[in-house]
């Protein structure tokens, strides 16, 4: 078993369920957040954090996994789900002034939140995020958060390990090492902790909350913080603090089914007829 303990923060987002019909609000073109769930891709981040701390003896050994979210009142559901899956405690940054935040404003608030939760006597070692939120899908947050915190960014990790090299003076240097699968090459990237790591769905198979987990979650604490609590000026977040804006949005008609045929021995030829008619050959 690994001996060094880890203090990990996992970022989780509450997003509209992609299985349902997702909409933009007619007033301000922001995403309508009813029927929201924990972003599916953040489950991989939670699992990655739990795996790392379990290898190190879990809570008993002094490790911790804290799930953080920023969002309206209902977003606490994402944190609760993370607690059911196994995160130790939760933090919800909730403030009316956050409404309409773009990536720049979100990363500013999340950076302040992480600093707030990282006192000198117990600093955060790793910040693990999903590869993208399933609503915004920008993947901007991990990079912007790393830039704002001036921490190394290890993004799109398909594997993650924390290694330690013992120095003679004792107290080794701990590194996060990831593998990432690019289009033209695979890369191994490493950085000394603390670091921001975003993980893909290649990294693990997330566990489901079981009955024990669901019961245990009821006893875990969720702390709600406001912008004032973490020392962020409301003018720097929300629509006011954002650096991008949506001018207009247009709903696209849903795709409809075309011609469907059952193969009667010549469907391959009919398929080619269709391509020819569409001038696609």
């Amino acid at each position, binding site marked *: 078993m690994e001996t060094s303990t880890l203090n990990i923060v996992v970022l989780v987002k509450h997003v509209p369920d992609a299985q349902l019909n*997702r909409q*933009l609000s007619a007033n301000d073109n922001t995403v309508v957040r009813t029927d929201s769930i924990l972003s599916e891709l953040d489950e991989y981040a939670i699992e990655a954090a739990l795996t790392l701390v379990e290898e190190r003896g879990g809570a008993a050994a002094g490790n911790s996994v804290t799930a953080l979210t920023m969002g309206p009142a209902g977003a606490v559901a994402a944190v609760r789900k993370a607690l059911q899956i196994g995160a130790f405690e939760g933090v919800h940054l909730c403030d009316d002034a956050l409404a309409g935040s*773009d990536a*720049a404003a979100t*990363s500013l608030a999340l950076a302040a939140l992480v600093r707030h939760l990282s006192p000198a006597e117990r600093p955060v070692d790793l910040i693990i995020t999903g590869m993208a939120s*399933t609503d915004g*899908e*920008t*993947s*901007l947050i991990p*990079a*912007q958060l790393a*830039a*704002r915190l*001036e*921490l*190394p*960014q290890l993004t*799109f990790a*398909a594997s993650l390990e924390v290694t330690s090299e013992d120095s003679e003076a004792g107290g080794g240097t701990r590194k996060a090492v990831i593998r990432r*699968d*690019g*289009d*033209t*090459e*695979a*890369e*191994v*990237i*490493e*950085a000394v902790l603390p*670091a921001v790591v975003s993980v893909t*769905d*290649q990294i693990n198979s997330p566990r489901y909350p079981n009955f024990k987990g669901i019961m245990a979650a009821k006893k875990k604490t969720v702390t709600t913080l406001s912008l004032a609590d973490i020392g962020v000026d409301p003018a720097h977040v929300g629509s006011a603090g954002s*650096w*991008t*804006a949506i*001018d207009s*949005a*247009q*709903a*696209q008609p849903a*795709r409809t*089914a*075309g*011609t*469907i*045929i*059952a*193969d009667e021995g*010549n*469907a*391959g*030829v009919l*398929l*080619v007829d*269709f*391509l020819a008619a569409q001038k*696609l*050959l």
Partner: protein
Amino acid sequence: MSAVLVFVDRHGAAADAGLSARTQELLTLARTVGEPVVALAGPLFPAARTGFGAAGVGRIYQSEQHELFDYLAAPKADFLAQVSGKHQPAAVLLENSAEGKEIAARLGIALSAGVICDAVGLDAGLGAQKSVLAGSYTVTCRATTAISIITVKSNSVHAETAADPAEPVVEAVSVSFGAASLTAKITERSAKPASGRPELGEARIVVAGGRGVDGNFGPVEELADALGAAVGASRAATDAGWIEHSAQVGQTGKTVSPQLYISAGISGAIQQKAGMQTSKVIVAVNRDGESPIFEIADFGVIGDLFTVLPQATAEIKRRRG
């Protein structure tokens, strides 16, 4: 006219290689909204210089410092921030790759500038068009800051050369990197074998296979080759190890919008649809008539891919003589 800075990474490019299709598209788009200026990471060989000239690039800021390639994303953002400080562009354009978005993200923080990703078009006022929520809306958005940072999806514009070619002036830049930028070190790189087929994200036609191919991508590849297409896959097929992960189409793979997407042995789960439903024409072959893929197919065949695909391949070859 205001300058539009285009980021071009030519690390490891062959000496005789011209500009990539993506670079030419970015430069074409840059010309529609301003005057293209290039920030080049890597070497400048004559073939590329000629390409930049033909694209109307008057000035190239160049750096080949090894830090740019030894660490992830951050040094490149430092480079662009420094060039932006010198040249004051109205916009910075980058490729929409994972790395392109990361550089853009960091540059946004460095310049206090808004970042738009996944753009498919730009208007004269730097409003960017993009599709959101898996194609259910098209939005026009913009950076409200002095500089707009925009990553542009490939194939969004038709690449053209400039009406007025230029003779680019090259200025070497010595980037001073932030201490925090030299921290995520790339310690190993392994190149992936090239397939000889078009690149998935850029292809006009994609033929994709799923769990239904049952370990045998042969019929999918043969149809793809007859059509000059790229090969794609569902996550079930890449997870099974039948084809490399870079072929995955969908929420956690590539988002493609080709002229034609042929889906074979793929059920059409929401995560798969998220990556292909903006394709112009969708053709599906699946044994199960109840598969959700048929809800979005323009032409669907309920049948066995192992008979339908080879027959189609043979028919295409026969028609072409």
